[in-house]
């Protein structure tokens, strides 16, 4: 491919940004990471994503692409000679997209809900939908991995990226709330998958370390409680 200019506007703690990074790594695409400063939005971001003003934004040869899952599909289609991210069969693609949407619409908000729940009762109630969601994904893993290491089979695929990008935050939530979400006994396949995913070459430098992310989470919570500071 002729000289590609790829920039990614993002921030290290964002799982949505991590998705784009992992996809670019899988395709061995070199890119410039433009880190947004926490609490403010750059001119470039506002110009490149005027509709949502959110990260990640990928800028490929001066053309912006927004929304993490749209970016992942775009990367897969442009760098088609690299390892493929989406499965080739339309039914498998639909299934992957379904679960990625479930993660974004239901699972991630539920995980966030644990962190913002006030008191033991509220926390218990908040954990339930997460456990239910993870049970669904355990089932889906068994179906789609067909005995291999990843949702995508032998190698990391679309659903691995969509779900795996949240592992940093899942671990922070477990640590800060003294709860096991991906439980070795209840979701043994997800437990093994999580370790393999995070150790993969395309992922290992992307998903933030739990301690570093916990520190950030504390800063974030403080900011949410005191927006002026």
């Amino acid at each position, binding site marked *: 491919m002729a000289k590609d200019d790829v920039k990614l506007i993002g921030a290290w703690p964002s799982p949505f940004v991590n998705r784009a990074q992992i996809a670019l790594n899988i395709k061995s695409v070199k890119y410039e990471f433009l880190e947004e400063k926490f609490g403010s939005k750059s001119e470039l971001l506002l110009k490149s994503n005027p*509709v949502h003003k959110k990260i990640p934004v990928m800028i*490929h040869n001066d*053309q912006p*692409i*927004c*929304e993490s899952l*749209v*970016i992942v*599909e*775009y990367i897969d*289609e*442009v760098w088609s000679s690299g390892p493929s991210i989406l499965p080739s069969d*339309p*039914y498998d*693609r*639909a299934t992957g*997209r*379904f679960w990625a*949407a*479930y993660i974004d619409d239901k699972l991630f908000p539920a995980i966030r809900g644990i962190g913002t729940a006030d008191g033991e009762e509220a926390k218990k109630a908040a954990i339930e939908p997460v456990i239910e969601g993870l049970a*669904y994904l355990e089932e889906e893993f068994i179906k789609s991995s067909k005995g291999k290491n990843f949702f995508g089979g032998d190698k990391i695929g679309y659903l691995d990226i969509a779900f795996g990008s949240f592992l940093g935050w899942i671990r922070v939530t477990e640590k800060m709330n003294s709860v096991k979400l991906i439980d070795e006994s209840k979701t043994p396949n997800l437990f093994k998958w999580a370790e393999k995913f995070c150790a993969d070459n395309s992922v290992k430098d992307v998903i933030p370390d739990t301690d570093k992310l916990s520190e950030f989470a504390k800063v974030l919570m403080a900011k949410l409680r005191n927006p002026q500071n």
Partner: protein
Amino acid sequence: MAGDKVVVLGTYGSMFSMRVQVALAEKGIEYENKEEDLANKSPLLLEVNPVHKKIPVLIHNGKPVCESLIIVQYIDEVWHDKNPLLPSDPYQRAQARFWADFVDKKVYDCGRRIWATKGEEKEAAKKEFIGIMKTLEGELGNKPYFGGEDFGYVDVALIPFYCWFHAYENFGNFKTETECPKLVEWAKRCMQRESVSKSLADPHKIYEFVVSLKKKLGIE
């Protein structure tokens, strides 16, 4: 494809069901339409969509696909020879996916608030709705369709809301045609396609449905 069995679980009036119907009609695919009573969901619906228990569901040769835009993409990929809905260029595809996602994130929820709330909340919803339509109108520009020269994915995603405009306008007290004339021109252009005119619900029936729903929910 010979021997394909396609079943759609949906409800009359659902914009999401209509997307699937428009897409199937664009591709000339025959299917069995099963009308669901959402107050009394069928065992089949609960079986094929256990996670969300929602319509629409497309069942292709016994295998279910859920979520309207995912279904539309599936239809486009399986029956790829006729009337492609997504463009072939990756950047154009990304733009189409972005805008369909925008429609999903914004239109339904805001539209609902117009008829389901009152006073200041309703006014705010109406203003927001007009803003959303103006943004979409901006994206349409001078193109005949969101897909460019050809009717495409974003057109499918948005056009079913057109039959709800009459209800939104009545409850919100505004006219989309006044606020966004180009968008209404686009909608009328889409309605000239048989796939759309045969799939969209009657706006007056939608209005009556909202009136009775408001009564049921106890909203003034």
